[in-house]
């Protein structure tokens, strides 16, 4: 049962941390770290055990609720599409634990939430029963809500509730679609659903597709369903921003490929152009709004909207190349934005402001952090030899055959991202030194180094050796694109 173990290991560790006596509360971080490291190790084992192109593997399967027309199974499995995301999740979980190593307020509950969140996400990536998938999808809400509203800053209550309501509203439509699908196909088994083609359902399949899409698009997020993201990011603690940008957004993209496209290929073909259009619009729109942001975290949040637009663009093209690119972009964006938030978090810890206006010249007082920020910035600009570039180019090349004009639109995102990132760097780390920040220390704790270096290393690795992932993604995506007949 390796997958089951992997999925529930973090939650287990988190709950274990809860049991610590009050006077040992701070040790929860160690429990969490061990748990996340174990999960990371396990996921890596799976990663290297995985046999490329051999479909779903490490299957855990058991009948759960079986009443008449209503069979729900406990069914976990991974394929080339989900496994990299699983590894990404375990990795970012570890990073998130590290960056929150100095949490003082209710550490036991904090790490418990963080780890349960990780479990929920892992569940989403591995669940192959549609209802189980839905359950994990909903489960992720609770820890997120608590993490933002308890350990957040600013209008945390508002942001947390906004996040929850947005997601729940989306999943409302999702649930309707899931039920309709399950009814017409007579199963919740995503593997089966993905193999046969549903011809008609109680409500038009176009709607089913749309409802599913809405549910996932909220998470992605796409314009105009994105406004929860900046609020959530700006008020969430660093680790949560890392998880949110790193993996939670990916749930949306993953789910669109895994369900919308795979299960409803015909509708996907009909809607492909719209997906691409929305993607392209998100790219530009997100970029434009990013230019106006004065809060570093909101800025990164909006840039995420822009970058996740590429994912949708790639999916909309429905070709192998494009969708591989989309999946790769998810990984790349996960790592890069994760790194960005880690670095910004470090800055915030020291300067206690995220106002770009108040920052400046930090390259002098905190050279390491500044370097990291510049690195992350260029990664998100899509600089070659870094993960983002590979993903962007693959998406562009893949999508160009199908939606030339959409790609032409989206390409401008490349310049725009360069614009706002470099402008931000210029205002935050460059320029004359501000005496205000004299004496703030540079990145110094080992856990800070570990998280930054680890993420940066992966960004480079994925940038120079893409086949490590591509070989895994490719066959899995081939299956999908074969279904849509691309």
């Amino acid at each position, binding site marked *: 049962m390796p997958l089951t173990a992997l999925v529930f290991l973090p939650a287990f560790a988190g709950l274990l941390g809860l049991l610590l006596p009050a006077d040992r509360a701070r040790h929860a971080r160690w429990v969490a770290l061990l748990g996340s490291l174990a999960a990371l190790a396990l996921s890596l084992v799976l990663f290297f055990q995985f046999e490329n192109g051999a479909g779903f593997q490490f299957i855990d399967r058991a009948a759960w609720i079986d009443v008449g027309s209503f069979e729900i199974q406990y069914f976990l499995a991974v394929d080339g599409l989900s496994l990299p995301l699983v590894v990404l999740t375990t990795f970012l979980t570890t990073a998130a634990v590290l960056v929150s190593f100095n949490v003082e307020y209710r550490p036991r509950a904090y790490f418990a939430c963080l780890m349960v969140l990780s479990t929920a996400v892992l569940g989403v990536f591995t669940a192959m029963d549609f209802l189980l998938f839905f359950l994990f999808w909903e489960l992720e809400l609770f820890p997120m809500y608590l993490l933002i509203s308890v350990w957040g800053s600013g209008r945390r209550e508002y942001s947390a509730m906004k996040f929850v309501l947005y997601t729940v509203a989306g999943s409302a439509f999702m649930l*309707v679609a899931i039920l309709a699908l399950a009814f017409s196909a007579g199963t919740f088994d995503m593997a089966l659903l993905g193999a046969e083609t549903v011809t008609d359902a109680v409500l038009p399949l176009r709607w089913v597709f749309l409802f599913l899409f809405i549910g996932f698009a909220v998470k992605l997020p796409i314009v105009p369903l994105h406004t929860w993201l900046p609020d959530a990011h700006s008020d969430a603690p660093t680790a949560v921003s890392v998880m949110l940008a790193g993996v939670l957004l990916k749930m949306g993209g993953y789910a669109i490929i895994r369900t919308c496209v795979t299960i409803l290929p015909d509708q996907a073909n009909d809607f492909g152009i719209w997906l691409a259009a929305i993607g392209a619009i998100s790219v530009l729109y997100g970029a434009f709004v990013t230019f106006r942001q004065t809060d570093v975290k909101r800025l990164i949040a909006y840039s995420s909207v822009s970058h996740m637009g590429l994912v949708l663009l790639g999916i909309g093209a429905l070709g192998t190349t494009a969708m591989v690119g989309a999946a790769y972009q998810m990984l790349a964006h996960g790592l890069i934005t994760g790194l960005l938030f880690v670095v910004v978090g470090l800055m915030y810890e020291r300067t206690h402001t995220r106002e770009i206006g108040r920052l400046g010249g930090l390259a002098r007082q905190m050279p390491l952090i500044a370097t990291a920020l510049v690195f992350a910035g260029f990664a998100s600009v899509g600089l070659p030899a870094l993960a983002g570039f590979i993903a962007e180019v693959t998406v562009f090349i893949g999508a160009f055959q199908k939606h030339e004009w959409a790609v032409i639109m989206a390409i401008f995102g490349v310049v725009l991202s360069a614009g706002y990132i470099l402008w931000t760097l210029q205002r935050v780390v460059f320029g004359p030194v501000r005496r205000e920040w004299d004496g703030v220390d540079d990145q110094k704790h080992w856990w800070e180094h570990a998280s930054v270096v680890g993420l940066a290393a992966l960004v480079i690795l994925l940038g120079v050796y893409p086949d490590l992932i591509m070989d895994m993604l490719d066959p899995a995506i081939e299956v999908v694109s074969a279904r849509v007949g691309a």
Partner: protein
Amino acid sequence: MSELDIVGPQLAILLAAGAVLVWDALLPNRRAYLPWLALAGILGAAVWTSTWVIRGDFQTAFDGTFAIDQYAVFFQYVFAGITAVVVIASIDWVDRVGRRQSEYYALVLTACAGLMFLAGARDLITIFLALELSSIPQYVLAGWGKDQRSSEAGMKYLLLGAIASALLLYGMALLYGFAGSTLLTDISAAIAADGAGSRSLLVVASVLLIAGFGFKMAVVPFQMWVPDVYQGAPTPVAAFLSVGSKAAAFAVVMRLFFEGLGEQFLSDDWAMIFAVIAAVSMTLGNVFAIVQRDIKRMLGYSSIAQAGNFMIGLAAISIAGEHFTQGASGVLLFVAAYAFTNLGAFIAVIAISQRIGSDDIADYAGMWKRAPLLALALAFCLISLAGIPPTAGFWAKLYVFNAGIRADLAWLVIIGVLNSVVSAYYYLAVVRQMFLGEAEDEQKLRISPTVALALGVATVGVIVFGVIPGPLVDAAREAAAIFAAS
């Protein structure tokens, strides 16, 4: 078998009621035993019911005016459970008042007997009397407190109830006039014979019936008494009303409409009525509930919204010919789950408001610190009411929605799901208060063992059926199966 056997459970309960009165008259100083006496009666009823299940002989008696079938059995269990929990939960409360105990328990038991009669009644007269047998004691119980609020609640409840039952009676009279009989079977036969000719009459009759029972179900627009009465009546009684009479009303409506008025041309009409009422009830109930500050009123409004959810099931049954049992079992499942959940919530409220002497949601702040288990239980019940996994409420909603989808009521289901989003908002608001709010006084609350017991039963039910809903679902489907024939 003898007719005594058929009414055995009700007899047991009524005997217990009598015994309670006598005991109180003879041993006024041994009042502590009264509730246990009552429980003994309920237990007897449950056992008796079980004997049928074991013997497996289900039948109708009294010239077909009364039936013992899985359906009746299912509801008899539900009512027995409800009453038992209510009795246990009442002990503390009743002791506090210190007088009128015997009448209280006797009336609760009588009402319970009435509900049980309703479950099996298949004849207008029997239905009417069973209904009144359950109602009149409830009027009295509502006014049991005899203080201003309580007697006002009683008065309001009675006057409106009387008007409602007058309307109901007029509808029954019209039905009788049309069919020349009060037996549901005859009525359906008559409708099948020449119903189409006098559809207008049948429609008006159905409308009047719906009004009469809608009053008990507390669906819009027959619901306005609910918050006032719930707030004014003794809380255990409110709990009993919110669960018992609602469930009974649904039980009898399903029987009445599917055994009596099940004819297609007619069911199209009232199915639409149900659908509309469902939509309106859910929406209005939630909209009202959002701004409530008094938790009992909030629960009152939410129970209106919940009734709307039941109604989705009803509408689904009547429209979906071949998926008939789907909707029926959905409703039954919902009844059971809702019974546990709402009772749990009310009991928790009883316990808390007794201690802190307030029903103001604001005063629930920090309950997590003051009474952890209580807060946890209440949280679970609220989450279940919101229909969020992993709770019984989730499966109930899922099942009803599923039925709705199968019945081609996607629009209604969407309204339903969106409404559960809204409801999630105010349910979780309470949870937030309890867990995140800061209490002004940290002093712990003492919970009486009996309340704890009742609460435990309810909450465990919520969670157990949340994790393994299989058995309950099966039971519901068997009970609903009796309609498949008709």
